[in-house]
């Protein structure tokens, strides 16, 4: 217990200094075909992550984005354990055939208003898996996508910046 306290004290704060807040309406990472106005959540967005067939690269970066260094939670974004608690879905990977129905049901389970964020190139356009057996297509084929984060995998800074356009902080 004491050693834990000592560790906390000696480590101190490791979070990166916060970059300036995003412009209120224009999402920085949004693709050209993204909707112009996203619903505003008043500074707090609860996020459910759905892996529809990812290689886990994006998961590692999401983990880093919510870790102590990039610390997305200080901007009001928070990962939750059920779509019933969520405002936004964070979808990674190309949608495999087995995940089409679960993804659609998860989308239906999120209360309105809701947004879907496609994280990584696979979620946007199937990436290297495009046309492969067992792939049903990108996320936008299954559920409407509001925000896309490019990269294979996207850097944590990019993820955090994109999420900040949702929270507006």
């Amino acid at each position: 217990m004491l050693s834990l306290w000592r560790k906390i004290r000696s480590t101190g704060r490791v979070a990166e200094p916060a970059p300036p807040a995003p412009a209120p309406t224009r999402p920085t990472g949004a693709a050209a075909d993204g909707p112009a106005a996203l619903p505003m959540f008043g500074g707090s967005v609860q996020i459910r992550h759905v892996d529809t067939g990812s290689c886990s690269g994006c998961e590692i970066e999401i983990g880093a984005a919510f870790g102590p260094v990039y610390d997305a939670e200080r901007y009001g974004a928070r990962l939750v354990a059920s779509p019933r608690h969520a405002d936004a879905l964070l979808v990674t990977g190309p949608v495999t055939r087995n995940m089409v129905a679960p993804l659609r049901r998860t989308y239906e389970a999120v209360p309105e208003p809701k947004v879907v964020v496609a994280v990584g190139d696979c979620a946007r356009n199937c990436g290297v898996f495009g046309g492969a057996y067992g792939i049903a297509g990108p996320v936008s084929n299954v559920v409407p996508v509001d925000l896309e984060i490019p990269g294979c995998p996207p850097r944590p800074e990019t993820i955090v910046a994109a999420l900040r356009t949702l929270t507006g902080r």
Partner: protein
Amino acid sequence: MNVALGGLLTALVTGGLSALAGLLFPTPRRATVVGIGTAATGVAAVAAGVAAMAGQPAVVALPQLLPLAGLLFTLDPLGGVFVAVTGAVAVAVGIYGIGYARHGLRGRSFQAVLPLFVLSMVLVPAAASVGTLLLCWELMALTSLLLVLAEHRRRPQVASAGRWYAVMTHLGLVVILIGLLVFAANAADGSFAALRAAGPTVSPLVAGLVFVLTGIGFGSKAGIIPLHAWLPRAHPEAPSNVSALMSAAMVNLGAYGIVRIGFDLLGGGPGWWWLLLLGLGAASAIYGILLAAISTDLKRLLGYSTTENMGLVLVGVGASGLFAASGESTLAGLAMAAALLHVITHAAFKTLLFQSAGSVLAATGRRDLDDLGGLRTGMPFTTAAFGLGALAASALPPGAAFVSEWLLLQALIHGLPASGLSAAIVMPLAVAAVALTAGLAVVTFVKAFGIGFLAKPRSPEAAAARESPASMLTGMGLAGAACVGLALLPTVILPGIGAVAAGVVGSGNPVVVDAVTIRLADVAGSLSPLLLALALTVALVAALAAARAVATRRATAIDARLWDCGGGPLSARMEYTATSFAEPLQRVFDDVLSAEQDVDVTHVEESRYLVQTIDYRRRVPDRIERRLYQPVLAALAGWGRVGRRLAPGSVHRYLGYGFYSLCAMLILLVVTR
């Protein structure tokens, strides 16, 4: 007219006639006649018991019936409590047994022995001499053993359970016999009046010996650790109406014996007796409920819960003795009243719980909670009955056990400033033990009710379960009504219980009641169970109404699919099981329980990364049993092997043994004369 005497004699006659009817009536009507006869015996016993509690004496002397000693019955208020409890249990169980007998219990022997068992339990608290007590005790042991063995043809485990029960109960009888004979040797004769007169004058050493010996015997009947080994074996294997009788009525008589010998006949005694009793009671309560919390067999769980509740009763008795030894007579009366009230409430809810468990067993053939579930749709009445019993057993405010445990805690808490150093150490520990027990009881019964009756059925038998016949439901209804009555209006019986407790310890009545409120005499504390239940109901209704009002104020209702992780409909295999529900508890108490579990993972042939099956096995051995009984049993078996060399099968040698032992005896006689 003397109701106590009349009731006792009526019970004797109806019990005997019912047993005879069990022998003589033809099979189709046998169970009905015996059931009604048993219930009538119960009604007579209740009348006798209540009249005796009100102060009517009943004396029956049958000097010719048993050679040398004769039979002598005297019903006093203390005995009256236990006679009334036994009678009330017999009424519910007798009616219940009419329907339950359909499941292979219509045989002549079973139906004839059942009323005898009830009768012997009614007579034990009325016995007023050593010979009578031992005779009734042995009759009770033998009849209950026959009843436990009723289903031995169907399940081989019954025989093993019966052996354990037979050995334990007879060893108990032997120590009680020795204890009472030592006591009687120091008194004028074997009647309780003579023992009572001699009690305060016998030397402390003899008195201590008598108390410890009889305490061991009666404690084993009450299922107190470490002598509880028979209880979780015999209760599940006995037919459920017998389990109800044993668990709700018979084990009480162990507590009765301790109170009768310790308080009445030996006249109190030094503090260490009662400290010992209190410690054993507290340990039994915690250990019993802990094993109940992790057992998955419904009736075994209820059996362990019996150990717990008897432990709580003995905590009350022990505290009462401790207070009496240090001169705090009002507190002693309070603790004794709590113990007696707990005997009554335990009898009510345990009858109900065992009857519901029997109803489930009859409908599904399953006792394992991991195979049950989803009984609410097929068996609504049984589910409601078990729910009511579970609420009563878990010592939460609108439940029956709450009142008695509240009284017990009041006695223990107020005992802290009252008496000396030992009390200052023991009382807080006892309060903690009772509180821990109450908490674990909630876990246990939430598990038993939630896993066993709600959610989806986990086996086809549970899915096809149908409600039990009307006679069984009537029996459960009676026990359920008793539970509700004890929970809401304990004020009706508490003055009587308080007076009996006061009579036992020689104090004023420790509780004062008006229409709905219980007040403690001399110490601060009051409780209104009815008002409390009303307040809870009102709060619940208000909360529900508020939630509904908020929900309906919203503009539109949305139909949404039940969230099932997106993967398709939920199945019974995804449910919590009794094992998984208790797993966190098992981890917390791993030092005490030391569960054995192993996990076998088999992989598919092509890849080590793909799992084919996972096999999880968990056993929680009774640790006390393993440490204490296994060495003794192993030593006995070793003895047996050595002894076998003496019996090689030669007739000459056996004749020789007889001859030489006769000669040795004769020589001994000649030398000693």
